């Protein structure tokens, strides 16, 4: 009966070839899908013929994990960079044109011009207007920082929502994998889906995965908190709709463990959530403190003094909510940059007298220097100019040291931010390169090469043709046998 068995083997071969062709066509159709892993039909021999036993999915755990880690660190870094870009633009303007450092320089120029011709009221108004620019830069910068914090808070909240729903997706995929594996089904589709979800999760948060029996998977965060084990764990976060200087935001909890925000320009944050927390709780508040310190230094430098030394110094051209007192030296006053304003007594747009800047006396007669209202009295103006160039003491907590003039301090604030941005941009490039590289390696290990599939297809065609030829030959032989018998 060997002819019948040859026929049956040829039939099996036809079946195998068509199954393999099916795999090839699926591979080709998903060639450009980065989440697809190439399938291979592995043929194992069983007596009396060959048959397709299983579909193997090319997977490379190590490369996949490397890719996940690279993805996390790149998304974290690029989130930080985007936040820094945004803050630099909204606080300092294009090419730092509206930065406090620049407008303070313009104010000093205007003040000097007025001091040169103190009899000119227009120049007095010009100086007050320049002061208004300083106030606006500080107010707007402070508002931009707090808006950015609120926006980041909202983004964190959205990220947490997405993460929770991704964990549900993961649960569905993982359950399918486990059930399919137990039943001995082909679970490649579910595995692809599960890997895709993992990639998305690692954009938000760094993860480590652990495989268990029946292809079951456990996910933990980089810090070791459980994200998924049989069931998804909940991630909780209380969003705060509005931020004020000095207010602290809430942490994100994974299974009760708080996510730690990143540190530094080349951030330690992996995933967007940690990077956003770094921006919200570290970068933005520091910038706010720096603006507050600049505001305090301006109020102090421009404070009015009593020529007889009896009255305490009082807030002059720049004033604040605690006026007429001067804010204490060397200590950050939260929100000072938001509350600094032009002294109403000198603000000509609301009926004040800008010439008080030359004469003194915005705080009453005790503070008048130019007692005879001499038109070209410039001593007070010159003393303001000198005080603006004097060293002041600053709070170390703002991260820019404790000394320097208001001019060098405000320039230091720009340096601080731009240094961080430069480091972040460099690190983003490196981390992006690593991510691209690992993605490429992963794709090379698990992806589809169409040319290869086409050559396999040629083989399959030949095999199919050979099998058909075989059937025909057996048929001919049987026919010859039958003819001989007849």
């Amino acid at each position, binding site marked *: 009966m060997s002819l019948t068995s040859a026929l049956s083997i040829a039939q099996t071969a036809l079946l195998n070839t068509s199954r393999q062709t099916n795999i090839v066509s699926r591979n080709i159709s998903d*060639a*450009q*899908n*980065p989440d697809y892993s*190439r399938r291979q039909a592995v043929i194992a021999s069983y007596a009396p013929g060959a048959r397709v036993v299983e579909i193997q999915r090319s997977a*490379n755990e*190590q*490369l996949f994990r*490397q890719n996940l880690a690279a993805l996390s660190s790149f998304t974290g870094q690029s989130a930080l960079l985007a936040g820094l870009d945004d803050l630099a633009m909204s606080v300092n303007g294009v090419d*730092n044109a509206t*930065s406090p*450092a*620049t407008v*303070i*320089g313009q104010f*000093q*120029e205007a003040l*000097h*011009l007025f001091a*040169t*011709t*103190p*009899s000119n009221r227009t120049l007095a108004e010009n100086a007050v207007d320049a002061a208004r620019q300083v106030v606006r830069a500080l107010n707007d910068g402070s508002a931009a920082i707090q808006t950015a914090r609120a926006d980041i808070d909202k983004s964190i909240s959205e990220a947490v929502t997405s993460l929770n729903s991704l964990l549900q997706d993961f649960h569905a995929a993982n359950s399918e994998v486990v059930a399919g594996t137990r039943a001995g089904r082909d679970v490649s589709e579910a595995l692809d889906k599960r890997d895709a979800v993992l990639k998305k999760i690692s954009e938000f948060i760094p993860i480590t995965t652990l495989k268990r029996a029946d292809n079951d998977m456990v996910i933990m965060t980089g810090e070791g908190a459980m994200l998924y084990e049989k069931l998804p764990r909940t991630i909780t976060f209380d969003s705060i709709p509005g931020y004020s200087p000095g207010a602290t935001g809430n942490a994100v909890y994974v299974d009760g463990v708080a996510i730690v925000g990143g540190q530094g320009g080349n951030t330690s944050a992996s995933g967007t959530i940690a990077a956003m927390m770094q921006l919200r709780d570290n970068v933005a508040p520091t910038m706010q403190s720096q603006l507050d310190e600049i505001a305090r230094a301006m109020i102090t430098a421009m404070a009015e003094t009593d020529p007889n030394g009896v009255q305490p110094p009082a807030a002059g051209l720049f004033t604040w909510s605690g006026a007429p007192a001067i804010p204490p030296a060397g200590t950050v006053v939260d929100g000072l940059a938001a509350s600094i304003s032009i002294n109403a007594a000198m603000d000509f747009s609301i009926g004040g007298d800008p010439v008080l800047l030359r004469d003194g006396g915005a705080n009453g007669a005790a503070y008048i220097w130019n007692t*005879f209202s*001499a*038109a*070209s*009295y*410039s*001593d007070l103006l*010159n003393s303001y*100019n000198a005080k603006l*160039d004097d060293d002041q003491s600053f709070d170390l907590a703002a991260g820019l040291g404790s000394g320097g003039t208001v*001019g060098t301090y405000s*320039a*230091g*604030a*720009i*340096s601080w*931010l*731009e*240094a961080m941005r*430069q480091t972040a*941009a460099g690190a983003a490039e490196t981390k992006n390169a690593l991510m*691209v*590289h*690992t*993605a*490429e*390696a992963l*794709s*090379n*290990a*698990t*992806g*589809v*090469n169409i*040319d290869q599939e*086409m*050559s396999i297809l040629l083989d399959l065609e030949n095999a199919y043709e050979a099998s058909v030829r075989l059937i025909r030959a057996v048929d001919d032989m049987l026919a010859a046998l039958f003819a001989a018998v007849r």
Partner: protein
Amino acid sequence: MKTSPFVSTSSVTQAVRHSLLRMQTNLISSQKELSTGRVADMGLALGSKTGEAVSFKRDMDRLSGIIDSNTLVSARLKSTQEAMNQMTTVAQTFLQTLTASVSGDASQSIVLTDARGTVEALTSVLNTTLNGEYLFAGINTDVKPVDNFNAPGSTAKAAFDAAFLGHFGFAQTAPAAANITGAQMDNFIDAVVVPQILGTGWETDWSSASDQGIQTRIALNETTETSVSANEIGIKKLVVAAAVVADLFSAELSQEARNALSSKALSMVGEGLSALADLQSRTGVVENRVKRASERLEMQVDLFERNILDMEGVDPYEAKTRVDTLLTQIEMSYALTARIQQLSLVKFLA
């Protein structure tokens, strides 16, 4: 990283895509650098030095502002010098007249006319304005520093009349004035007129100027007085000498008293002239200081400009080469993409 001989189709196309994206991003910033001559993103290029560049620019603007204001100051000082030259010329002519008067070569009327003319000329020079500010008013630049002694209603004239009356017991126009002796006249000048002009009388009755001059910052940490007040002793002496002569020469004085007055006035004008010369040289010193300060500031501005250029400038040739190279690379990568697309087994399977 594991190296595998296997290459997936998507990684082949992705690789080209990634490098193309990077090149295009570079192209945009390089083009910006080429057109502006400065780095595309100062912050990314300079990092922690960005603040330095910003403060260089700020200081440059401030220094330029001071240079501009120094030209104003120089103009004021130049006008002041010019005015003092005029006063010197006027006073010297008056000095000649007085000399002639003392030696008896000039008649009363000539001396009187010249004295009156001198008072008027000095008054008008002292009341010179520049940009609406009185040059010799000290810091009271909105108030006319001296009134015309000859004009009716002059407080200086009234004060002088009162002083004369107080000293002699009669007005200078009274007939008794003819009996004033030379010694009495000398005494009047020394005991009344000189203390009055040197004391508070000048500032209450003669001048509205302040002693304090305009203080101006001529460099970041250099402040100096950049105006001359009408209260300077030289100016006071010239004005008072001319005014007293103009006033008393119209009265019926004895020749002896007139001669005494002339010689007193002569010495006062002489003193005044030398004090004025002193004042002029002091003003010249200030002028020079302002000029030197401006020169220093200009050098600093140049230095800052060069520093800024060093920090954020881009070599245009280098930028141009970079743009050209990038364009070539991008074109090659387009060509490559097209070739890679062609390079497929499918094309060869009929």
